[in-house]
């Protein structure tokens, strides 16, 4: 693609992107509210989705132009792991880190699991307590997600077999805190603000973070189908540039971070679930949510290493193995570089 091609007017001027209420939807919200999409000549509507599977089906069927996706999702879609294969791409990363492991307050008190500098310590505390014959129910957000893989790795650190010693269930992130307070689940792994909100309501405590296990892992990406990217290259370039501009704006000042939080608190986005926060909690321990910084948004096959390894492990159950060319195609920086170097 030449530089001239990239400066072309977007083929679409109105489009709809899906999101799930999470702090790492921030770049999409900022790009819309601060006018970075508009500056690129695109009018973007954001559609709040209640479930990851619905968001995935809508992107696959063309009901959404693209969406905030869990980083393993475009690869799982391409490989046809959940349903009919649909070639998908992650042309830009939207966030790194951001996940928290939360256990109910009573489980923390009984097991002695607590947050420390070593994630293995809380996992071992839980593992020792489990020896007494209990089988807690732990929730994560989707089978092909960092939350699922991180939870398995963390449990393994405590000598806990994730298939036998605990019951793993799937719940969408906005349901986690209520499910925990009502005793439907005993703990969860999910993105912010849901972990800190559970602490705020005193129904659970943070015992470890995803960043402690896999520092700087790609967490959310923009996901589009291969055919959409092929048909609308200038629109995709415009999306990438707007999201990069949103990230740079966010990096500028603390006021911008507070303003971003105020936008996220609007009813169509995260609504009251962020009222306990004073500003976007970026790069604070232990979660280290990252939405800006050198190299944060550029897709990176290397950074997907741990995720691909876990995905490959789940493929063994269906007697398949990871398709390496598909991995490279999914997380190739080619669209990002083309959009940014003109």
């Amino acid at each position, binding site marked *: 693609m030449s530089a001239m091609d990239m400066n072309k007017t977007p083929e679409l001027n109105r489009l709809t992107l899906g999101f799930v209420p999470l702090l790492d939807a921030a770049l999409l919200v900022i790009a819309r509210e601060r006018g970075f999409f508009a500056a690129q000549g695109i009018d973007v509507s954001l559609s709040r989705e*209640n*479930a990851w599977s619905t968001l995935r089906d809508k992107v696959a069927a063309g*009901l959404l132009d693209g969406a905030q996706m869990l980083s393993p999702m475009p690869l799982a879609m391409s490989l046809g792991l959940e349903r*009919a294969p649909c070639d998908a791409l992650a042309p830009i990363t939207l966030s790194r880190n951001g996940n928290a492991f939360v256990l109910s307050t009573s489980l923390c008190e009984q097991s002695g699991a607590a947050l420390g500098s070593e994630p293995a310590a809380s996992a071992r505390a839980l593992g020792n307590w489990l020896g007494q014959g209990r089988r807690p129910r732990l929730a994560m957000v989707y089978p092909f997600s960092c939350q699922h893989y991180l939870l398995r790795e963390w449990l393994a650190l405590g000598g806990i077999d994730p298939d036998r010693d605990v019951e793993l269930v799937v719940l*969408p992130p906005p349901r986690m805190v209520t499910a925990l307070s*009502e005793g439907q689940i005993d703990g969860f792994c999910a993105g912010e603000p849901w972990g800190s909100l559970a602490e705020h309501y005193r129904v659970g405590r943070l015992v470890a973070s995803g960043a402690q296990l896999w520092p700087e892992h790609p967490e959310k990406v923009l996901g589009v189908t291969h055919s959409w990217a092929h048909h609308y290259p200038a629109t995709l370039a415009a999306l990438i540039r707007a999201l990069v501009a949103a990230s740079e704006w966010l990096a500028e000042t603390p006021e911008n971070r507070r303003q971003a939080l105020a936008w996220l608190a609007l009813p169509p986005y995260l609504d009251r679930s962020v009222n306990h926060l004073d500003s976007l909690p970026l790069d604070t321990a232990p979660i280290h949510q990252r939405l800006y910084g050198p190299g944060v948004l550029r897709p990176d096959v290397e950074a997907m290493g741990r995720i691909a390894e876990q995905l490959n492990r789940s493929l063994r159950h269906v007697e398949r193995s990871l398709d390496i060319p598909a991995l490279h195609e999914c997380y190739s920086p080619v669209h990002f570089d083309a959009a940014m170097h003109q």
Partner: protein
Amino acid sequence: MPPPLNVLLVDDEVVRAAMVEEALVAEGHRVICRLTSPASLNEMVARHQPDVVIIDMESPDRDTLDSMALLNRENPRPVVFFADQHDPDTLQAALKAGVSAYVVDGLLPGRVKAIIEVAIARFDAFQSMRHELEKTRNQLTERKRIERAKGLLMKHQDCDEEQAYRMLRKLAMDRSQRIAEVADSVIDILERLSPRSSDPTSSKQGPLP
């Protein structure tokens, strides 16, 4: 006659769920209705062993159902997403109507398709019913907006109700807009001139004293 199938219906729209249930029962199926509740969906599926699960596509419970086949490999009755039945037309119609379906692996595709088509038809019927209701509701608020604009004109132009209405009608004709649209711009302009008069309850009483 083929044996009835167990259908689990997960839908928060009570009226729509009743419509789907009635139609499926008429076809001879057994239907279990479930509102989204704190009860665990996993347990519900284990207890009722449905052959087919029909779920509102917008339901937050979808991820839980979607993951069942993947997480519980030892499940004796694997539930698979309907898309795996390779019927793109029905799938597209289902997506448009907002119907998602999960079926027990190995069920005759024709029987499943009949059930899903019933659900799609009822979801569509419910949608047009709701659309009609919304239209009526909009007309109501439209009338209120026109009343509000009349009230503002009466105050600002010091005229009676009849004259205010004629003014609106003339503006509408001049701009080839609907009266409700003209009313909106009148409200916009006049309320900005005197923001203190923007009492939302005043439209019924006419001009403020």
